[in-house]
């Protein structure tokens, strides 16, 4: 009878520990899931910014010769032609900024040759829109 009492006590104690561990594991999983979601969202935004920057630097704002374009060579004239709103809509980004100053947003930078000078061109955005 006394042995059975110890067994029940042991089991009860183990059960409490197991329940506490399960609760903590669920909490940790939730935190990890949230962190992963935020990280993935950040990565998607960065990748989209790189896509925009590739498009701008290699095509949209690249200086043109007779038959081709010169990637990374940008002039004020070609840079001013960019329609930010249209680009935002096409790529699914909001608050897109392209310029020579960093903004208080998620930003990436590209090295370009602007009017013969080596410069850093920033691409910033607030967040992305899901397709």
């Amino acid at each position, binding site marked *: 009878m006394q042995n059975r009492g110890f067994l029940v006590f042991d089991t009860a104690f183990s059960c409490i520990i197991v329940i506490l561990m399960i609760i903590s594991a669920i909490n940790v999983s939730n935190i990890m899931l949230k962190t992963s979601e935020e990280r993935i969202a950040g990565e998607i935004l960065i990748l989209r910014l*790189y896509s925009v920057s590739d498009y701008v630097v290699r095509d949209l704002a690249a200086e043109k010769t007779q038959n081709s374009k010169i*990637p990374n060579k940008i002039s004020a004239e070609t840079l001013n032609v960019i329609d930010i709103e249209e680009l935002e809509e096409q790529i699914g980004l909001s608050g897109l900024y392209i310029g020579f100053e960093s903004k208080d947003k998620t930003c990436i930078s590209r090295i370009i040759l602007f009017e013969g000078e080596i410069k*850093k061109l920033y691409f910033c955005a607030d967040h992305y829109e899901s397709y």
Partner: protein
Amino acid sequence: MKVIEATFSFLVLCSLLPFLIYDTNQDFQKEYYYMKVSQDILRVLYLKGDFEDFNKSKLNFDLIKIRESTGICVVIEEQDVASCIPKMANVVVKRVAFINGQPKIITITFGV
């Protein structure tokens, strides 16, 4: 009792699994940045004509300008050209450059 112990051990393992399988690849953005920025630097150096005549002082001037704006050190090993000495090499590429009219392979290291 053994069943309880086995169950207990299994649950402990299950509770540890999220830690074990959690992906800690935080360097993704950094790696991608270095890849893109090294391509840009090479491209800009080509556009500036630095690899055509391989003028070391001109190349150094441009590399220092790049270091000032990006913080990235560029080293061209074979030609003793460096904007600074990186503590860690992030990207290493080999390119052909015309040095004294001869095409030669140069190793370009990007790092911080």
